[in-house]
């Protein structure tokens, strides 16, 4: 025979179990509700409207192995990849047309999917149709609550590209010295500056500066305008800051032209540099501009 105390304990246990199960079910239902709501996320690229829900099969087929089921960059391949896959839940992206610290516009993500990211395992997924890509952009966005609460930044204005001249290249070189780009990228752009070995990304993982002398395409695109953008928006989550507050738009073009002289390809800029007999900068010499003191750029947001 059970005692009253035993009966009471039994009753309390059953009741507690019931409420625990009920709360679990409610939490699961709420999570499902939020996930379901997020799957209504859309993207807008030109006339295209992407739907996150439609991208589920493609994400599962192509992306999940690296970026993970939850979009947290923890797919089963993550331990063996360098650089690591993007954690979409943070809502932080390197390749943007928007100011540092802001969300990218949909077109930025759309372009990144098709272009791929050189020097990583992210290949160019230009085999997708435009619609599939737009859907995937919406799916990428649905992982981060940031896209539900914040608006993307306003894309920076890129002034028309001026003509390349010797003066502009020299001005660009002076800027390269003044902004201390060489500290990471090296005086010849070989990614061997004094700070190169100490660089870390926002997750405290070692990261390498871009080696201009290698001739590889920069991660966020290889056109002059792409270089301009990288320089003025920064690569969020990496030590590469935005120089938008420190450099005038026209000066930024000078730097773009100078950077082209560091690449091994046959370019107009390289030809002019050759005619000028342009030598690598001397980091110990004072900068050629009145502002000899290094300018402190806007740091990239760290998370």
């Amino acid at each position, binding site marked *: 025979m059970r005692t009253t105390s035993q009966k009471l304990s039994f009753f309390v246990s059953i009741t507690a179990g019931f409420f625990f199960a009920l709360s679990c079910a409610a939490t699961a239902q709420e999570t499902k509700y939020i996930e379901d709501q997020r799957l209504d996320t859309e993207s807008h690229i030109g006339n295209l409207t992407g739907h996150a829900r*439609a991208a589920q*099969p493609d994400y*599962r*087929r*192509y992306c*999940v*192995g*690296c970026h993970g089921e939850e979009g947290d960059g923890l797919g*089963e*391949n993550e331990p*063996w*990849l360098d650089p690591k896959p993007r954690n979409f839940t943070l809502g932080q992206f390197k390749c943007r047309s928007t100011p540092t610290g802001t969300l990218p516009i949909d077109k930025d993500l759309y372009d990144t999917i098709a272009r*791929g*990211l*050189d*020097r*990583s*395992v*992210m*290949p*160019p*997924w*230009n*085999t*997708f*149709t*435009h*619609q*599939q890509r737009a*859907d995937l952009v919406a799916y990428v966005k649905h992982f981060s609550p940031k896209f539900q609460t914040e608006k993307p930044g306003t894309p920076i204005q890129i002034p028309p590209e001026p003509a390349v001249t010797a003066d502009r290249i020299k001005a660009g070189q002076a800027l390269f010295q003044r902004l201390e780009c060489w500290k990471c990228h090296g005086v010849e752009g070989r990614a061997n500056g004094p700070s190169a070995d100490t660089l870390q990304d926002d997750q405290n993982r070692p990261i390498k500066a871009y080696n201009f002398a290698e001739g*590889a*395409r920069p991660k966020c695109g290889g056109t002059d305008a792409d270089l301009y953008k990288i320089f003025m928006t920064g690569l969020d989550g990496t030590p590469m800051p935005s120089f938008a507050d420190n450099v005038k738009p026209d000066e930024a073009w000078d730097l773009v032209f100078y950077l082209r002289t560091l690449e091994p390809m046959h370019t107009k800029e390289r030809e002019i540099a050759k005619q000028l007999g342009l030598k690598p900068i001397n980091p110990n010499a004072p900068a050629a501009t009145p502002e000899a003191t290094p300018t402190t750029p806007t740091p990239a947001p760290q998370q």
Partner: protein
Amino acid sequence: MTSPQRSLVVVLLLLLVVLGSATTANALPAFARKYGLRCSACHEAWPMLNYFGQKFKDNGYQLMNDRDAPIWQNPSYWPVTFRITPQWHRESTDKVAVDTPAGPNAGQQQVTSHGFDLSGLDFHTGGTLEKNISFYVLPSSNSAGSFHFETVMARLDNLFGSSWFNVKLGKFELDNLISEKRILTLTNISGVYQTYHFRPPGDSNFYGQIGDNQLGVEWLGHSYNDRTRVSAALLSTNDGQVGLPSSNAYSGFFTASQAFDVGKFGVDRVGFYAMVGEAPTFFLTSNGGGPVATPFGNNSGGGNKGFSREGFVGLFYFGKVDFLVLTQHGSDNAFFATTPSSPANQPLPAGLQSPTWNGYLVETHYVYSPQLIFLQRSEFERVSQQGVQGTPSNMGNLNMFTFGYRYYPIMTSRAGFAWHNEYSWMRQKGAAPDGTDLTSSTLLLGFDFDF
């Protein structure tokens, strides 16, 4: 519940748990391991390529992301994949000539056999030797373990920095958009595309089998995103047999295709292909009929005559359902109308004419998920002109149907495993010993795996 019933329920439950607990997939796991991509990235269902996988192959097994050179790999990485399929299968043919027991009852009867068995072993190794220099070597065995080289080729990719200039040399699969080497069907009937191998009754020209790997050199060009593809190959007419076994004849294989965006459905593709060549009609003999043996090969064939295969191909996607469509028109010179062929150094015997035929193939897939695919294929071969005048016009016509499914319980970038279940059926007009129709069928259940 009786004891056997209980056991059955337990077994079924265990099977359900094993299959159901697998959450996560994979074709050449060697490539998947190299790049950290799941099989599903390149394969609609391995081994069949999807659009991205075709582009990867066209780029010389490169993703074109600066991580293609082997120097990026851990030194212990070995680009090797094994594939084999242990299986149970049942084979049945309704009319087989028999003489046992000897005596007046000898004749023909249905023969059915079944049991556990093995497929051959494929030993794939491929990848890059350096950025834009790729290779593929595939020693392949039959189920008894006797090996041959199925593929051996090296390829120079993106010559002059252009995706339009890629050259490969060796023994390789022809640039067939519907690839027999990546076929999803595995039975003795469906393991090859009948359309790629069909010949009318009596036709002796076995050199035009575009499903077989061939020896030669190929140029392939494609647009950056692979929407447009063209290729041309110069081949020795020997059906891929090494040692210069046939003659000094050559064949050409040409393809071109264009892909189109169809919105959320994906990318569809249409194209054409053509194989045109010459093959020997006789061989020099010595010592009373044996083939001539020369110190450096046996290229004693002569009397070359022409043959051609041409057709259209289409890959059409409608969400989870897709259709592969192929047509073929084949034609052999009249000297090939009989077996053995009529030597072309002598007049053509009376009553022979050029055998011609048409083939049609439709394969349908329902991709429920990257882990489960249902499939069917129907092939129809129709002789349009018999090689020997007076032969019934439908003699040799062939119908083939197969259906089944493949379930991939695991999805990782390390290995591949598929539970394969398929039934195939084929009937050919007038192919039985007594001149009536011959019907064959196959049922296969197997574990298809690679690692």
